[in-house]
């Protein structure tokens, strides 16, 4: 099954990359941009048929490896 794991900086944590990108977009004339947070997204192809089980599995992967839960949050979506 295809699973999407999104990992993003926690609200209270500094996001230097997002900051730099927001500034760059501003310089490019995209004045409407107020804020940017930069995260990662992982598309997993996982063997299995039970969405619940696969999701639980993916959550474990996120906690163990994909996300640094000290400074990042994450969410998991089973696509199909």
């Amino acid at each position: 099954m295809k699973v999407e794991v999104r990992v993003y900086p926690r609200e209270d944590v500094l996001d230097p990359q997002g900051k730099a990108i927001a500034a760059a977009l501003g310089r490019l004339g995209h004045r409407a941009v107020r804020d940017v947070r930069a995260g990662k997204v992982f598309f997993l192809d996982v063997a299995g048929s039970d969405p619940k089980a696969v999701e639980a599995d993916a959550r474990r992967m996120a906690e163990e490896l994909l996300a640094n839960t000290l400074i990042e949050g994450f969410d998991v979506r089973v696509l199909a």
Partner: protein
Amino acid sequence: MKFGIVVFPGSNCDADCYHVAKDLLGCEAEYIWHHDTDLKGADAVILPGGFAYGDYLRAGALARFSPVMESVAEFAGKGGAVLGICNGFQVLLEAGLLPGAVRINRGLRYVCRDIHLRVENDATPFTSLYGKRSVVKMPVGHMEGNYTAPPETLEELRREGRIVFRYCDSEGRVVDSANPNGAVDGIAGICNREGNVVGLMPHPDRCSESLLGNDAGIKMFESAVAALAAR
């Protein structure tokens, strides 16, 4: 002969290139702040290594929008000699002055060490003093040097002899074990169709005096001096 050295916020090797041009070659050299659009009458322009804009998003992605880049493109369009070293090469790629892109090294780690290069094209203003197929030792220092390009682009690069440097072993064999980042076809440096714009991942500026244990890199700068003298 005057070198213009572009300084982006986050450029680190601007002073290193300046040192080579001024102190080692005795040429004129001047820094060009990324906000300037005037290239100060430089005969050759160097985009130095470093982490322009912290390499945030993608190496070179934010720097390519600096005002100075329009002038650099114009200068290159008129046949001016432009050299992009490491981060400077990444900026040239993002700016479209050279084709292709670099991804994170296949080892997912920063690599700082000596490698060997085979000079595949000695017809550019920065390689004329190297014999064709000569093997040169040079250091690399980068996290994103894993060059790639669409098949048709690669074909074109090969056909037109625009691959300038390939990673090789000390005997000049282009083998995977000598490739520090996974770049396709061992590509370490390329040039544009006219040959006046050259970019490479390795650092000639870091091996231009024997005190540092290697002066193989200074020929790239001397080549430029010779090329311009010939003009």
